[in-house]
């Protein structure tokens, strides 16, 4: 006798809980992954930002109501960077899982493929949110503080930005047939996204040096995620960044679902028996 056909809301809930729980468990038990996820932004904060503090002065601009140190400015960008790397790492692990076979178990479960992919994204976003809060905790000890309401408002914004950046990674992974191809794509995606954004310098400063770069940075979805996080951290709404990030998430997600459609063939089509 088969189990009763189960696509009820509770089935969806159990499946998502299973996928998210598995990802969280793997993350907390892989200590080196946890530490390396934190080292990168901390190096930027303690070394890069400290070095550039004197040369990169910041004017008063929203959401800040006074002059700020450079470390304070780049902290939201580093939060987004954590999520960007996490999104790319999740998609890398999907390519790996696909090559190794464990992705197949997920894909043959009796749930819609879009839901399975969304669950993987939620799992990745949840891990990235955890990383960001740990990073902010360390930043707080370094006297980079925000109002407590900001830390609360940040949670849904981080989830959204994590989903958006994860969906971008998922989309990329749907086009990558082999693990070896991933490194090149990462270089063509991560570095342009990060450096052509407001993570390290504000838009007005970019505009002073290049109008084209300013336009690219302005419409870069990563910039919008950074601004969403920046405003949320200071308990201020930023509807433009929110809307832009939401739309980018929907577009990337829809494209990833098409990319993982079996009629296109999600597995590498190599020989076999």
């Amino acid at each position, binding site marked *: 006798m088969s189990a009763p056909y189960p696509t009820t809301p509770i089935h969806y809930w159990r499946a998502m809980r299973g996928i998210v729980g598995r990802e969280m468990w793997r993350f907390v038990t892989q200590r080196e992954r946890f530490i390396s996820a934190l080292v990168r932004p901390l190096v930027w904060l303690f070394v890069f930002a400290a070095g550039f503090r004197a040369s990169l002065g910041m004017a008063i601009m929203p959401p800040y109501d006074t002059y700020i140190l450079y470390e304070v400015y780049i902290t939201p960008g580093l939060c987004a960077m954590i999520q960007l790397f996490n999104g790319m790492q999740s998609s890398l692990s999907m390519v790996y899982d696909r090559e190794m076979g464990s992705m197949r178990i997920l894909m043959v479960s009796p749930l819609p493929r879009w839901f399975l992919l969304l669950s993987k994204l939620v799992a990745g976003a949840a891990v990235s949110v955890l990383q960001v809060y740990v990073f902010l905790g360390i930043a707080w000890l370094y006297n980079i503080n925000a109002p407590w309401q900001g830390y609360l408002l940040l949670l849904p914004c981080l989830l959204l930005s994590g989903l958006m950046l994860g969906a971008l990674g998922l989309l990329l992974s749907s086009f990558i047939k082999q693990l070896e191809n991933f490194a090149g794509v990462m270089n063509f995606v991560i570095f342009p996204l990060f450096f052509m954004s407001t993570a390290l310098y504000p838009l007005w400063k970019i505009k002073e040096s290049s109008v084209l770069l300013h336009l690219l940075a302005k419409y870069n979805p990563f910039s919008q995620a950074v601004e969403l996080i920046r405003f949320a951290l200071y308990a201020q709404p930023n509807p433009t960044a929110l809307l832009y990030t939401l739309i980018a998430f929907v577009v990337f997600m829809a494209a990833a679902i098409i990319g993982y459609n079996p009629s296109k063939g999600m*597995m590498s089509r190599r020989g076999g*028996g």
Partner: protein
Amino acid sequence: MMPAVALSVENLSFAYTNKTALNQLNFKIHSGECTLLLGPNGAGKSTLFALITRLYDSRQGCIELCGFDVRRQSRRALAKLGVVFQQPTLDMDLSVMQNLLYHADLHGMDGKLARQRIQQELERLDMYERRFEKAKELNGGHRRRVEIARALLHQPSLLLLDEPTVGLDVPSRTAIVSYVHQLAGDGQLAVLWASHLIDEVYPQDHLIVLHQGSIQANGPVPEVLAAAQATTIHAAFDHFTQAGKP
């Protein structure tokens, strides 16, 4: 009364970009049957499995699992299916129990029921005592047992096994072959087992011989032997897969 049809494949074809992988396949598998899908490497076995599990999609032909079309009613169809893939698919960082609970979650099983079923399946495979060990601590044969337990957890109607004994030592192979035949013998489950190892065939099995994407023979072992005018399965297999070779 005729046993229920667990898997029906009709006029199924599939091609990769430059190569036909499967050509007009037609066959049925009934509950209580153990069907060995024999074919040399490159015959199309893994492609057929990818289509049955809907990892690939074919526009030509139809696959039904317990009456549900795999393309149009994929969720209902997949709920009836248990799969053991050729490649290991356990999460090596998780324990046996965690791997099985993860699968139970994906199938929407209630936690209490899932634990009962896990205990039943692991005990049948003599693995219950090792449920808290990480998958990476198990040897190849024991991992396979856990994968079989996982595939049976949601009580499917069809169990697909894609060369599950490749790379295992003889005692592990023998144990798995015997256990799967016993499962089919219970009458509720249909088994489709892809293999290129002829000694895994039992005399009461059904055989499908696949070669270059086409079915060369399909039927109970005695019928296939008769069709090939052979006395052993080995000779029959050679007859069907080497015809036309110099």
